[in-house]
C-alpha cells in the first residue's frame, strides 16, 4: 500500500495555518455575499439577495467541510495520499444513489401507499446507501491488501460503472421533463437555490462525522503504521475501520445531497493543510473541515464570477482545480517510486 508522505517536512506553524484559513474563509464568505446575479444597490432587494446568498454560502461551506473531512478519513483509512471519496468512487456511488432516489421519488413512490415518506429525506438516504455500497464494493475488491495503483484503478472502474448507471437512469428520467432537469442539475452539482433546509439535512452528518473523527484521531494516527502495529499497540482495527467507513459514506452522502457530485475536494484539501498542520489527525481533522468549507465556498464564488450564459456547475470548477493537483501528486509519487 502506498503511504501518506505528501509533505516531507514538518508543519510551518499551525497557528499561522489557522490565521490563513480564517482569512481565506472570511474573504470567501464576503465575496459569496457580494457576487452574484442582481446588484446590491437596490435597498428593497438587499435583504432578499443577502439571505439567498448566505444560504448558498452556508450550503457550499457545509458540503465542502464534509468532503474535506471525508478526504482525511479516506486517506487515513487506505494509507494512500491519492485516495479521496471522488477518486475511489464513493462520490459517484452517492451520486448514483441520489439519482435513484430522485427517480424513485418522482415515479414509483407516488403510485404506492408510501406517499407519507418525507421527500426531503429521500435524497440524502439515497446518497448514503449509494456511498456505503460503493465503499463496501471497493473494500471487498481490494481486501487482499492490493497496491495503490490497483486501489486507484478499482476506484476509477467503480466511478465509471456508477456514472454509466447514472447516465442510464438519466436517459430514462428524461421522459419526464421536470425529473430530467432535476437529475441533470443534481448530477452536475451546485448550490444554486440551496439554503437552510439543505444545511439542516447535511449538518447532523457533518457534526456526527466530526465528533467521530475527533474521537478516533489517535486510532487513525496509529493506523498510519499499518494494521499489525496498530493492533499490537491496542487498537481494535476492525472496529475502527468499520466506523470510519460508515462516517466516510455519511459525510460524502451529506455533501453530495447538499452540493451535488463535486469532485476532488477531499483530495486537494488535506494536502493543502498538511504543510501547516502536520500529519497528526488531531490538527488535520478540524483544519481539513474548515479548509474544505472555505475551498467549496470559493469554488462557488468562482462559478458565479465567471461570465457564462448560465452559472458554471460547482463540479466543473473543482474539477479544473482538483484534476491538475491529482496529476501533480501522481507524477511526484511515481518519481519517488511510491507506486511501483
Amino acid at each position, binding site marked *: 500500500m502506498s503511504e*501518506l508522505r505528501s509533505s516531507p517536512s*514538518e508543519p510551518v506553524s499551525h497557528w499561522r495555518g489557522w490565521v490563513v484559513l480564517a482569512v481565506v474563509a472570511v474573504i470567501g464568505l464576503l465575496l459569496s455575499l457580494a457576487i452574484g446575479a442582481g446588484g446590491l444597490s437596490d435597498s428593497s432587494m438587499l435583504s432578499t439577495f443577502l439571505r439567498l446568498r448566505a444560504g448558498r454560502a452556508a450550503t457550499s461551506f457545509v458540503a465542502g467541510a464534509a468532503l474535506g473531512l471525508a478526504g482525511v478519513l479516506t486517506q487515513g483509512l487506505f494509507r494512500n495520499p491519492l485516495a479521496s471519496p471522488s477518486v475511489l468512487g464513493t462520490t459517484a456511488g452517492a451520486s448514483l444513489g441520489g439519482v435513484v432516489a430522485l427517480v424513485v421519488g418522482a415515479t414509483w413512490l407516488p403510485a404506492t401507499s408510501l406517499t407519507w415518506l418525507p421527500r426531503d429525506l429521500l435524497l440524502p438516504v439515497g446518497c448514503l446507501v449509494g456511498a456505503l455500497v460503493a465503499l463496501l464494493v471497493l473494500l471487498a475488491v481490494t481486501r487482499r491488501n492490493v497496491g495503490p495503483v490497483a486501489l486507484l484503478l478499482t476506484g476509477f472502474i467503480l466511478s465509471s460503472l456508477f456514472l454509466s448507471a447514472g447516465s442510464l437512469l438519466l436517459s430514462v428520467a428524461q421522459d419526464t421533463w421536470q425529473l430530467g432537469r432535476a437529475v441533470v442539475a443534481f448530477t452536475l452539482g451546485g448550490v444554486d437555490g440551496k439554503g437552510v433546509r439543505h444545511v439542516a439535512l447535511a449538518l447532523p452528518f457533518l457534526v456526527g462525522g466530526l465528533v467521530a473523527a475527533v474521537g478516533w484521531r489517535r486510532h487513525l494516527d496509529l493506523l*498510519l*503504521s499499518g494494521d*499489525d502495529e496498530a493492533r499490537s*499497540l491496542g*487498537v481494535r482495527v476492525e472496529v475502527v475501520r468499520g466506523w470510519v467507513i460508515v462516517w466516510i459514506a455519511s459525510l460524502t452522502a451529506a455533501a453530495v445531497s447538499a452540493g451535488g457530485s463535486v469532485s476532488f475536494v477531499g483530495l486537494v484539501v488535506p494536502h493543502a493543510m498538511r504543510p501547516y498542520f502536520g*500529519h*497528526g489527525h488531531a490538527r488535520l481533522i478540524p483544519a481539513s473541515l474548515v479548509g474544505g468549507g472555505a475551498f467549496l465556498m470559493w469554488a462557488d464564488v468562482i462559478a458565479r464570477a465567471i461570465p457564462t450564459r448560465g452559472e458554471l456547475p460547482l463540479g466543473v470548477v473543482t474539477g479544473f482545480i482538483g484534476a491538475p493537483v491529482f496529476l501533480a501528486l501522481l507524477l511526484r509519487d511515481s518519481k519517488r517510486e511510491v507506486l511501483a
Partner: protein
Amino acid sequence: MTASIRVSGLSARYGRGQNVLHDVEFEARTGAVTALLGPNGSGKSTLLRAVCGLVPYTGEVHVDGEPARSLSRTELARRVAFVPQNSQLQTPLLVKDVVQQGRFAAKGRGAGRRRSDAERVERAMELAAATPFRDRPFTALSGGERQRVLLARALATGASTLLLDEPTSAQDVRHGLWMGGTLRSLAASGVAVVVVLHDIREVRTFADHAFLLSEGCVVRSGTSLDVTAAAPIRDVFAVEVVENGSLGFTLPEARTGPGA
C-alpha cells in the same frame, strides 16, 4: 524467575496455507533475555506475532499466567509490547509523537495525555537513545535510528514483556552492542525480553536462554550456550562452528550511550 509468557502446543499458519509453526512449546521468564534462533523461514517472527495476537493460532498462550485469548486487545498491549523489524509507518510523524503512541493503551482518565505519560515517553526515549532525534520526522531517520524509536515506543507502553524482531539487523557494530546491553539492562530491571536474533555470537553474548527453531518446530531449548553449541548449530544451519580465533567486539567501559 517466573514465566511471563508460556506457550504450549501452538500451531499457526497464514491464511489457508501450510502450518508455519507446529506444536511449539516455549517459555520466557521475567528478568531474563530469551533468544529465538533459527534459519530464515523457521517461524521465529511468526511465534512473536502469535504471542501478541497478530497471527491466529491453535494451542495456548499464557501471559502472566492468564490465557492471552481472555485478554482484551488493550489489556494484551499493556502487558506485551512488540518491536517489529521494520515499521510500516511512512508518514513523517515526529519521533516524539511516534513514541507517544506507546501510551495508547494506558489506563485511566486522560490516559496518554497526562504529565506522567509525557514523563514516561521522555524516559523511554532516553532508554532507547532516541532523544537526540525526538523532534525529527520518523521518515527522515536511518534504519537503525528507526529501530531505536520503535524500541522507545514499546518501552513507553510500560509492558512487562518485550518482544523484539531482529532489533540489531539495521544497527552498526557499536549500536548492535549497545542494543544488546540495553536489552540486558531491561531484563535486569524485571522485564521479560524475547528477541529474535540471527547472529549466534549475539545470542551467546546477550541471551540467558535460547530456543532453536527449524521448519516451524522447536528443536532445542536451554541456556544460550547449550543451544548455540556446535552440534545443534551444525544440525540446523548445516555449518561448522569455529570456536577459535573468532572475531569479537566489546564496548569500552567508560562509554555508556551508543553515540558516545
